[in-house]
């Protein structure tokens, strides 16, 4: 399993920085359309708003609302190029999500440790593949 220590300090620093934003990252990703915007920006890089709009069956003002909220959460940055507004992804605040689910992931890892112990302790009365033998 990966060791969490190396990234812990960075995550703490990020969480502190994220506190400065007016919308929290949980609210931001709670909406499927906003998750889709993040996915599009991740896969396709920065894009003008018009290009993002092509992917959604919604009016431009609604998309603008979503983009504004993502910006307020620190998940996207906005840049004006000529008459177009371009949006780019800022991944760092997503770390707050990882921290959110971490206790549950730890719960499952601990339980699966228990499962592994139980399996190791049982007599091998169920055979493995034909040439596997019983060397474990």
């Amino acid at each position, binding site marked *: 399993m990966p060791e969490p220590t190396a990234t812990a300090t960075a995550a703490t620093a990020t969480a502190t920085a994220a506190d400065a934003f007016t919308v929290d990252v949980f609210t931001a990703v709670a909406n499927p359309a906003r998750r889709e915007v993040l996915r599009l920006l991740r896969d396709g890089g920065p894009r003008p708003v018009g290009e993002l709009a092509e992917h959604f069956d919604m009016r431009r003002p609604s998309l603008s609302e979503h983009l504004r909220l993502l910006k307020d959460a620190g998940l996207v940055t906005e840049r004006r190029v000529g008459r177009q507004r371009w949006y780019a992804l800022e991944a760092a605040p997503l770390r707050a999500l990882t921290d959110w689910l*971490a*206790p549950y*992931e*730890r719960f499952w890892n601990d339980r699966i440790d228990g499962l592994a112990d139980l399996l190791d302790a049982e007599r091998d009365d169920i055979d493995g593949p034909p040439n596997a033998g019983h060397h474990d």
Partner: protein
Amino acid sequence: MTEPTSIDVDRFLPHPPEKVWRALTDPERLAGWLMPNDFVPEIGHRFTFHTEPRPGFDGVVHCEVLALEPPRLLAWSWRGGTLDSTVTWTLAPEGRGTRLFLRHEGFDPDDPLQRQALRIMGGGWRSHIMRALETSLADQP
């Protein structure tokens, strides 16, 4: 994107899928590594897991068998506290053993109670899936 509202764990177990399957579906064995339960391997069967109550959680997880394809696929609904979620186990033969995948999905990032309950449980592990996502995201210009 990888759904940021789910947990993925995978683990290699040096035992054949049939044996891992039995540990997942035999109520006594299941109680031995997860929680006391009244599980029956039958699609649609409703059952519960019991654990210690905590603030905001009475210690009972209400479940229903959603998928059952021995020895490959097992899914339960998982409702407890403010959670309304799904747990899916997938078993794949790998060498002399089994690659066990767990997906726990349906966490609601917009539910303050759920977030509070999770915070009470304390911090710890970071998901390698999320880390992979972050790395991939960080590579963007």
